[in-house]
């Protein structure tokens, strides 16, 4: 009886903690939503918390009227879907190979991978190489250089190493090669890790604005995050511009008054919400027993 009581207190504590925590995390987001539905001039007076004071759809109208936003949105979706699919497939295969203890050169390959996590030649050599490869101003520059993620490989490998050995043994007895074992046995039971790393890769692709701002010049290939970044940096820069002269100060201030906080928020939300929707969709892969269930089949 005592155990049940302590469990009950434990559970109550957990629920209270989670509710308080999620309020703290939801509020800033909710506040951004509210501000995006409030008129810009009124927002500048502050004090907007849970509900818009002067409701408007104007901020969203401005965003959706901008042609760059719509094509940016499409490019972002394309690169996220294609980039994630290719990257996760290739990285998972790579990791599976690396998880095999009898792979010749395994240790050296691993060291070779880890070095790349810490040593990088910087932007300029990478830029020159991408140019030699003909990737300038191409959609593929956002996909190809990022196919293999060493970090994801390490995570995949860790999970593969934890798989029960019996599984693969039986596959081998059935005469499966490494590739068939991987696709028909390992992949189906690796739901949680594939879902997690796909999510990470998709989020990375969606949020990466830097690649495009360096390599892409055509407006129709710009992902939406690069456009959002332009707006955000125009806001933050003026605050760091104290050192410039009076003429610059005056001009930047007047250029800025148009992009209000409300407009920034609506742009941010349009650029963020699509990626947020992926997680709830993937959550079913995190349910317990997925793996065991498939094992019994």
């Amino acid at each position, binding site marked *: 009886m005592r155990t049940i009581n302590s469990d009950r207190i434990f559970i109550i504590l957990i629920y209270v903690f989670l509710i308080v925590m999620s309020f703290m995390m939801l509020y800033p987001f909710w506040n951004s939503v509210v501000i995006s539905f409030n008129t810009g001039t009124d927002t500048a007076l502050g004090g907007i918390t849970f509900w818009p004071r002067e409701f408007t759809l104007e901020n969203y109208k401005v965003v959706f009227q901008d042609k760059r936003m719509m094509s940016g949105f499409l490019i972002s979706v394309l690169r996220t879907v294609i980039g994630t699919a290719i990257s996760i497939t290739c990285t998972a295969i790579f990791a599976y190979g690396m998880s095999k203890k009898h792979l010749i050169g395994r240790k050296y390959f691993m060291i070779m991978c880890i070095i790349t996590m810490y040593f990088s030649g910087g932007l300029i050599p990478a830029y020159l190489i991408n140019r030699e490869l003909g990737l300038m101003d191409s959609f593929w520059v956002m996909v190809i250089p990022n196919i293999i993620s060493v970090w994801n490989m390490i995570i995949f490998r860790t999970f593969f190493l934890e798989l029960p050995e019996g599984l693969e043994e039986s596959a081998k007895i059935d005469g499966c090669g490494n590739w068939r074992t991987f696709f028909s046995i390992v992949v189906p039971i690796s739901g949680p890790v594939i879902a997690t790393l796909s999510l990470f890769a998709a989020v990375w692709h969606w949020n990466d604005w830097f690649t495009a*701002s360096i390599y892409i010049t055509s407006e129709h290939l710009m992902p939406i995050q690069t456009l959002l970044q332009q707006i955000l940096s125009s806001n933050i*820069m003026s605050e760091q511009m104290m050192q410039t002269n009076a003429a610059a100060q005056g*001009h930047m201030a007047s250029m800025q008054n148009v992009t209000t906080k409300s407009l920034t928020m609506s742009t941010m939300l349009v650029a963020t919400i699509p990626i947020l929707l992926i997680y709830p969709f993937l959550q079913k892969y995190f349910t317990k027993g997925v793996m065991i269930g498939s094992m019994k089949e």
Partner: protein
Amino acid sequence: MEINKKSMFLILALMLSMSVLFSACSKGDEASNQNKVVDQGDAGNFILGETPLNFSFYGNYDWYTMNPWGQDPATKWIQENKKVTVEAIQSGGTALQKFNTMIASGKLPDVIWGDRGTDVEKLRMAGKLVPLDAYLDKYPNLKKWAGDKTLNMLRSEDGKLYQFPNWYTKRPMGNGGYAINNKIYKDLGSPKLETFDDLYSYLTLVKEKYPKVVPFEVGLSGQGIDFLYAGMSEDRTVGHLMNRAIPDGNVLKSLFSDPVYRESMVFANKLFKEKLITQDAITQTRDQVKEKINKGMVAIYGDFTTTVMGTEANSILKAKDPEDGYTMIWPFHKEGVDPKKVWVNEFDSLGWNVSVITTAAKNPEGIFAYLDWLTGEEGERIIFWGPEGTYWKGTSESGAPLYTETYANDVEERTKLMAIWDTFQWAGNTTFIDESKSVNEMNLPEDKRDWATVSQTNVAWKTSFDATEFGNINPLPDSDEGIIMQQIADIADQVRAKALFAKDEQEVIALLDKAEQDAQNAGYEKLLKFQTQKWQENIKKINE
């Protein structure tokens, strides 16, 4: 363990050497395209509007995004009538990296628009810029409006002109100053506000009567604090603080040991300690400042953008209560200082930044012709107020566009358009724009006049110091002096903030003593010598 380390370094070394080999191969063919002959621009006359002109344009700032060309009335007009099309190369929020990759790959845009100094000098030394001298006499506007003195100051060490200035001026300009909250001022009996003593007693009074109001709002990064230095003595300007060099006779001296600077920091500390200055002075964001002034929650507001931020705040407050709003006042000064010699703004005839034409441009003369047209009367009218017919119709004798009814009535749309046009304003002609604005303002009845223009003509421009002689006195950042300057800048930023938070006057002095010592150890003297030399050269150029 042992084997691991060894093999790791082996692999690393191998990879390094291989990649060097690889890159050596790919570098070879590049060098040949780089040695393009510098175009001196004697290709014959170019007539804008007859020959189509296309060029690429890169604005070298993180915050700068050029709007799409031809999508708004002004650039559409230019495209149709002048046959000019500009292709934007955006910084995408990473100007520095973008700029470097463009240089490293040898693919420069036709025009680069950015700050004077380091980047321009580097490009010039590498022979990547087209000198403009050959075009100066062919196209009249730049020479006419900027004048020879300004152009001489813009010349590089080799005596040639590479930079096309933006917002250059022959007359004072600026946006900074103190603005008082009308309602609070009236409520408190409209006391005299001239000297620092007046300021202090007024702020104390505000604090007492309006505990919720910020007595003195100093804006972003505490800019208003620097005004205290400007008022402590005659002919002290905020520019001294930015250069961290105080002129004394014909040498530049240390900021930290300067008695006037010390006095201003002691005063700032006193105001801050007694909570008369906003306590978030250094950390606050633009949104926070805006919120306070737009709500009328400050008694005195002062920073470098007072006329810009104040306009919005003033109209919001006036809309609620015509008695409310802000008024810009003459800067405060220490007792005994001549108020006519207090400078809270400064301008230089060179303006804000420049455009340079690179050797990648196919038609440098055409580009110059366009910029020259842009900086002339017609160009400025189109890019600032749009094509004739909507916001203006006809011109005054001096060429100023005359505003239409739509200009006054269609504020929202106009503000949006003018902000878009601002991103195409690469050759701003301050003298022309400012004179045109005041021509129109003077036609309006007093209560309809633009708050910013009134504040500027009455106060801000009259308290703006001509700092042309101090232009370009700072070293390149990767030179020896530049490295020192970076350290001095760090020391100065820190001591300014620390002095504000110090508990008493003695601590302020002690902090400044320490800063002086640190600065000297970092090589301050060497830097000051360098700056002095540049300054003296400037004076010679101006007096030529």
